[in-house]
């Protein structure tokens, strides 16, 4: 039997060989960012039909986003960082050897051998082995708790080591070093940055920029040590290690993170005799070919023109070049722009072109503002016409404009310094995206030009989201998002496409405009608003929007006669209409907490009215199948048993989920149920553009799934961590870490402000997740509004929420006390009969609505 199977397999594989004699074995070593990008480009090209693709992946997981690696500490899981869709390899018939490292290349026989013993033949070989963090070869460099900053495994090691550490040191004050420092600080360590040279970010910044950056970083509580040459690491006295520097000074630290530059991983290439550059890196030509015509090298392992490129965009350009070359094309890799913009510990830093003015004859303009902590410098050509380089620290808002001057050789304005000085009245400083040539590169990660964007707009992409889907622009590092938006706006304007943001035909306004009108003119009814600012009678869209705005601003009873006509049926009857016209009833159970007596009363009431009961996904009990006339009776009893409306019907606060927390759970760090109950009681009844959900977890195991909620809170040793704008539902979104280690008072203050800011500025039916996705400036902007009070509105936001808290009423309690309102809860105004169309059948011991077939059967029986 076994024999037979083997023969068959053999037959099939030999058949395949015969059949596909023009097939090529394409072998890729390394499944990092560039290796994966190569595979994706290859799969999008025609030549994939002729390739059998095999790849070696040394790490235990396929390619992930190293650029956003640091987010692994704050908000992203390994899964979310992944660059590979789950079925990618399967769907494309690519064989991936996960966790297997290529160890030798035999160029004569054209095979590669792996650590696990696989021997694979290749026709073409692509090396994408990346680089490693440079670890200074000093004694003690490999002591426990001394970790490189490069892979997810490194980060896991850091998290583990941080558990019993107080002090941390980062070796290297470059781009990555400062990112690592931020990570250590977030892990709660006292953080030091040890820099060999005199300047931070020496590759990108000049003295002025580096000096200012140093003082800004120090303001944040990180100690920066410059001119420190570590000569050895030994046992410490107060900490695990002691670093000894050449100048005789020392530093005690529990952890050491290496981030002092990268070294290309060229060893496998070197040992099979490929040319290696003087400063390391596999030598490649403009086609990315190595010294062997069947072997290419791409990404950080490659050296072009004696240069290593430590950024993804050049690696992606190399990958595209190789795919093109394999297909017989003539594309060339001719170097790449190394301009960068980033936010280091919240400090904006950008560097463009030649920041050190090393071009002969170049001139320098600089501007320093010690008060605001801003430093800007421009390097221009001798004739004052071309931008050669720039450094921006503390305010990098000019980056998109300056890079466009630089990359496209656009002639500078008469006074180039106007580009960095706080605006001069006689000159416009911004460079409209109109001025850019079609060839201007907008997104360097995905090589998207202005021309590409314009044709996508012509094809009908009129939103940033559509443009991202179509061109991939702004989906890499995200650095080009602002520029992309300005190109889009400009193109739309030119095309005369007015993006109609009117809420509906009755109001020529957006939801936000209506909110402002209501606030500023103190309008209290729909009638007043539409007679002053609208036309016609309104419709279900504007009525609900205005109903919601009035409710969140004035917080009056929603069934007041001026308001009742604005509510959707669920709000009108304070219950959720089901498919058969009956309603569900959801009493509030704050934090999911309920007493046995409470549960018993709910059970008794459900039994009395014959309702179907189910525990919801929001940690409470839902009672289904109530007729409209039964709603007040049921609520009368629920209120008597101590329950309140759960607002399951409203675009308002729904539930605050909790986990059991420190009260019972052996891992609990704080009382999550207590906080959940307090938050739910504070915010219940708040009407919003869409529903709002919270959750509170008692520790980072996160049993309450707080990171998928609009507002998520997690207890940590230092206080509460606040996540915002998460979402489950149709398009799940992981919440963003907004602030850490908050005390309860600050936590509530931030939530107050965030919620009212959302209520004021979101679009209709926009959950916080989409609101955040569309917010210009994103999380940082929200922080600047809520934490730094950039708009000066925090007092107003707090006053508004306080008004809502103070004027809370259980709508059901108000309703059952009001005879006139109760009149509405009848199916017929002129009869006590019930709707005969409501028919239940039994299933699993409870009722459910009869389906159409069952209704017909029942009707036939009755006839």
């Amino acid at each position: 039997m076994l024999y037979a199977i083997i023969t068959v397999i053999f037959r099939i594989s030999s058949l395949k060989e015969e059949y596909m004699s023009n097939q090529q074995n394409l072998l890729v070593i390394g499944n990092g960012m560039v290796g994966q990008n190569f595979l994706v480009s290859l799969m999008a090209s025609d030549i994939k039909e002729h390739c059998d693709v095999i790849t070696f992946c040394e790490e235990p997981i396929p390619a992930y986003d190293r650029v956003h690696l640091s987010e692994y500490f704050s908000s992203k899981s390994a899964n979310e960082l992944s660059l590979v869709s789950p079925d990618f390899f399967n769907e494309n018939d690519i064989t991936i050897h996960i966790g297997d490292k290529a160890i030798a290349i035999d160029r004569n026989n054209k095979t590669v051998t792996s650590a696990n013993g696989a021997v694979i033949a290749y026709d073409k070989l692509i090396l994408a082995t990346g680089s490693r963090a440079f670890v200074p070869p000093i004694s003690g460099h490999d002591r426990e708790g001394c970790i490189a900053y490069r892979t997810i495994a490194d980060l896991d090691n850091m998290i583990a080591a941080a558990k019993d550490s107080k002090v941390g040191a980062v070796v290297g004050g470059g781009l990555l070093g400062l990112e690592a420092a931020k990570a250590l600080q977030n892990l709660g360590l006292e953080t030091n940055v040890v820099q060999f040279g005199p300047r931070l970010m020496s590759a990108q910044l000049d003295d002025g920029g580096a000096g200012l950056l140093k003082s800004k970083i120090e303001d944040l509580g990180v100690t920066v040590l410059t001119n420190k040459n570590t000569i050895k690491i030994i046992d410490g006295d107060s900490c695990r290690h002691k670093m000894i520097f050449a100048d005789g000074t020392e530093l005690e630290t529990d952890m050491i993170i290496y981030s002092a530059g990268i070294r290309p991983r060229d060893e496998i290439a070197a040992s099979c005799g490929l040319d290696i550059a003087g400063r390391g890196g596999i030598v490649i030509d403009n086609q990315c070919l190595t010294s062997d015509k069947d072997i290419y090298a791409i990404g950080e392992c490659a050296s072009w023109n004696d240069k290593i490129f430590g950024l993804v965009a050049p690696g992606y350009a190399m990958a595209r070049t190789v795919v093109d070359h394999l297909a017989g094309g003539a594309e060339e890799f001719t170097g790449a722009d190394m301009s960068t913009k980033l936010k280091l510990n919240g400090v904006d830093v950008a560097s463009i072109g030649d920041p050190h003015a090393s071009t002969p004859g170049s001139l320098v303009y600089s501007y320093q503002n010690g008060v605001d902590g801003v430093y800007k410098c421009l390097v221009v050509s001798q004739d004052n016409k071309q931008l050669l380089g720039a450094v921006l620290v503390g305010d990098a808002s000019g980056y998109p404009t300056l890079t466009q001057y630089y990359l496209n050789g656009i002639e500078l304005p008469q006074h180039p310094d106007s580009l960095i000085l706080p605006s001069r009245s006689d000159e416009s400083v911004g460079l409209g995206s109109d001025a850019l040539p079609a060839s201007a590169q907008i997104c360097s990660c995905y090589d998207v030009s202005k021309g590409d964007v314009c044709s996508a707009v012509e094809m009908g992409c009129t939103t940033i989201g559509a443009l991202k889907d179509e061109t991939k622009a702004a989906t890499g590092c995200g650095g080009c998002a602002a520029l992309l938006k300005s190109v889009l706006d400009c193109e739309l304007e030119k095309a005369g496409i007015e993006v109609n943001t009117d809420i509906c035909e009755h109001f020529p306004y957006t939801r936000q405009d209506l909110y402002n009108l209501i606030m500023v003119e103190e309008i209290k009814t729909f009638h007043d608003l539409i007679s002053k600012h609208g036309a016609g009678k309104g419709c279900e869209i504007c009525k609900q929007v205005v109903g919601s705005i009035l409710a969140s601003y004035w917080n009056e009873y929603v069934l007041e006669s001026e308001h009742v006509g604005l509510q959707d049926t669920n709000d009108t009857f304070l219950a959720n209409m089901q498919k058969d016209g009956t309603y569900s009833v959801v009493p509030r159970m704050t934090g999911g907490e309920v007493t046995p007596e409470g549960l018993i009363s709910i059970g008794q009431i459900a039994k009395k009215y014959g309702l179907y009961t189910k525990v919801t996904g929001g940690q409470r009990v839902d009672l289904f199948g109530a007729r409209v006339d039964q709603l007040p009776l049921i609520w009368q009893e629920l209120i008597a048993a101590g329950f309140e409306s759960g607002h399951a019907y409203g675009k308002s606060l729904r539930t605050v989920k909790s986990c059991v927390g420190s009260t019972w759970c052996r891992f609990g760090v704080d009382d999550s149920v207590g906080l959940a109950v307090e938050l739910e009681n504070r915010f219940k009844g708040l009407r919003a553009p869409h529903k709002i959900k919270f959750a509170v977890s008692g520790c980072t195991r996160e049993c309450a799934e707080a990171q998928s909620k609009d507002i998520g809170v997690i207890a940590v040793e230092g206080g509460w961590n606040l996540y915002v704008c998460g979402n489950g539902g149709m398009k799940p979104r992981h919440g963003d870490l907004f602030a850490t280690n908050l005390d309860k008072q600050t936590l509530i203050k931030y939530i107050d402000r965030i919620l009212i800011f959302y209520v004021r500025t979101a679009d209709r039916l926009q959950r916080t997740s989409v609101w955040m996705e569309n917010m210009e400036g994103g999380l940082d902007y929200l922080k600047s509004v809520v934490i730094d009070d950039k708009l000066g509105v925090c007092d107003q936001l707090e006053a508004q929420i306080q008004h809502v808290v103070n004027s809370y009423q259980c709508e059901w309690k108000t309703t059952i006390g009001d005879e006139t309102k109760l009149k509405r809860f009848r199916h017929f105004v002129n009869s006590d009969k019930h709707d005969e169309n409501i028919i239940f059948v039994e299933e699993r011991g409870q009722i459910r609505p009869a389906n159409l077939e069952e209704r017909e059967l029942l009707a036939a029986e009755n006839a």
Partner: protein
Amino acid sequence: MNQWIDACSIDDLQANSGVCALVENQQVAIFYMPDDNAVYAINNYDPFSHINALSRGLIGDIKGEPMVASPIYKQHFSLKTGRCLEDENIRVETYAIRINNARVEINTNITIEEAA
């Protein structure tokens, strides 16, 4: 035979909203728009969701045509003609309605169009 049947008192109506009355075993949705001094009567049965619910929809106008939006799947029905604004093949019954001595009266035998 044209016959006006008493449905309810005008006090039973909800301004800018709807109620349902049982008229000769028919469920009739009655809407009241006080600003236009208008009342409308249509069948309460929603042909899309197959339930009696149109009286519980939001009302207003689309391009000047008074309408109700079904509370279930949100299709719009003209209150004058009963036509579904999204699907012209679908129409709900409309009835003649009048106010007589503070009483609301319905005539299920004539539609509004015929009455007018």
